[in-house]
């Protein structure tokens, strides 16, 4: 089983490294051919406006939407990836191209600017021990539909969620050496 990391802009190599540490064959995805080879796709942190625009123009957005709809692709989005996966963004740019894969409403830069970026330990539903959370100009989930499971929350709101084979976190597990969230996503991919 191969898992891809959307290799347009952002923390690509960090996710590739985590997948490889989990023993997975990981490949960067920047065109249709590599996308067709993977069962799971990670959308890394970066700038959602940049990534959204570039995947739209490269025709990748359409394929990702089709494959998630027919159940042949699992997706895990971190930070900017969450913004791109959200069905609704409360303070987004008009016309910002997105994937709209999950029934969640997200607020961008919910904790403030870079000065307010932080680290904290948080409880993650699927794990016994707390997870190190690195939040960088991070979004937050303001609302979620009934079909969405909230996996982690801070006092300000939800920061991790799952809907079927879609997984998203507002924080960056790829900036830590804790492999559990990636392992959790790999398990989702194997279920497909």
């Amino acid at each position, binding site marked *: 089983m191969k898992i891809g990391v959307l*290799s*347009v*802009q*952002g*923390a*690509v*190599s*960090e996710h590739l490294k985590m997948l490889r540490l989990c023993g997975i064959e990981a490949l960067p995805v*920047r065109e249709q051919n590599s996308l067709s080879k993977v069962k799971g796709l990670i959308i890394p*942190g*970066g*700038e959602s*406006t*940049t990534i959204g*625009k*570039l995947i739209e*123009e490269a025709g990748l957005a359409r394929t990702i939407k089709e494959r998630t709809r027919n159940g042949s692709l699992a997706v895990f989005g971190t*930070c*900017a990836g969450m913004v791109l996966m959200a069905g609704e963004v409360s*303070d*987004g*740019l008009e016309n910002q191209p997105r994937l709209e894969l999950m029934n969640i409403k997200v607020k*961008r*830069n919910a904790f*403030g*600017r*870079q*000065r*307010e*970026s*932080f*680290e*904290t330990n948080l409880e993650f539903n699927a794990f016994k021990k707390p997870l190190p959370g*690195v*939040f*960088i*100009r991070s979004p937050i989930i303001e609302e979620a539909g009934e079909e969405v499971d909230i996996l982690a929350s801070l006092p300000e709101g939800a920061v991790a969620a799952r809907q079927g084979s879609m997984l998203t976190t507002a924080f*960056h597990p790829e*900036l830590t050496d804790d492999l559990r969230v990636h392992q959790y996503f790999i398990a989702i991919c194997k279920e497909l």
Partner: protein
Amino acid sequence: MKEQGTFRVKKGMAQMQKGGVIMDVTTVEQAKIAEDAGAVAVMALERVPADIRAAGGVARMADPVMIKQIMEAVTIPVMAKVRIGHIAEAQVMEELGVDYIDESEVLTPADEQYHINKHLFKVPFVCGARDLGEALRRISEGAAMIRTKGEPGTGNVVEAVRHMRKVMDQIRQVVGKADDELVVMAKEMGVSVEMLEEVRKEGRLPVVNFAAGGVASPADAALMMQLGSDGIFVGSGIFKADNPQKVAEAIVKATMHYNDPKLLTEVSKGLGQAMPGLEMATLTDSDRMQERGI
């Protein structure tokens, strides 16, 4: 408990910018053009380096009012420049809430001996470097991101190429060094042995490394990415061109598809007049901004 301003959070911010283009802007209108074109951040300043060069005199931090307006106009991160060693200008920028501070040789240095102690700030810093030693000295002072110095405001990529090649070459040398050799190298570079050990282990700089100083075309951006840059700063190259919007979009695409000559050819077509640019030999020693703060 939330811990703000950790080195991981500062360095992580730069990691999120990888593969992207950061554009110099002087007005709200330009910042919006940059955002629409797909820039990952903007650098807010009063004049682009080419104009600073032409104007002469002392170049200082920009007016906080202008920076604030740009911060309010775009959703992408906003960076701003302060003079080398000017602690108070950096405090102003942190207070304003800019997302990244560039302690930059483009402005007139305030201190000829010391750089800012960047560990004392919650906002991350980017600094320029011409070689590995300079890069590691800046990182040990707390810089969370490095860029080549190049020669700003010239539209001539030759110095950025020189600096990127130098850093990459020195990293390859470090990777092949034995422990005792590393000690001597650390002494020669004025950096700690631990820092060189980290470079040897990872085979790269401990932080993200962008290209800057003279990148003016999509092909320049692709060249710097092929030489190993993590991303691109474009200063005067965009808004000194005839068609800024088109050039901005083309540089963003060229940075993503840097290994795709077909696409690079497409985006290079019909961009109009680029910035005129300067030949290095026409610069006197005092014109060379890269010699500042080493």
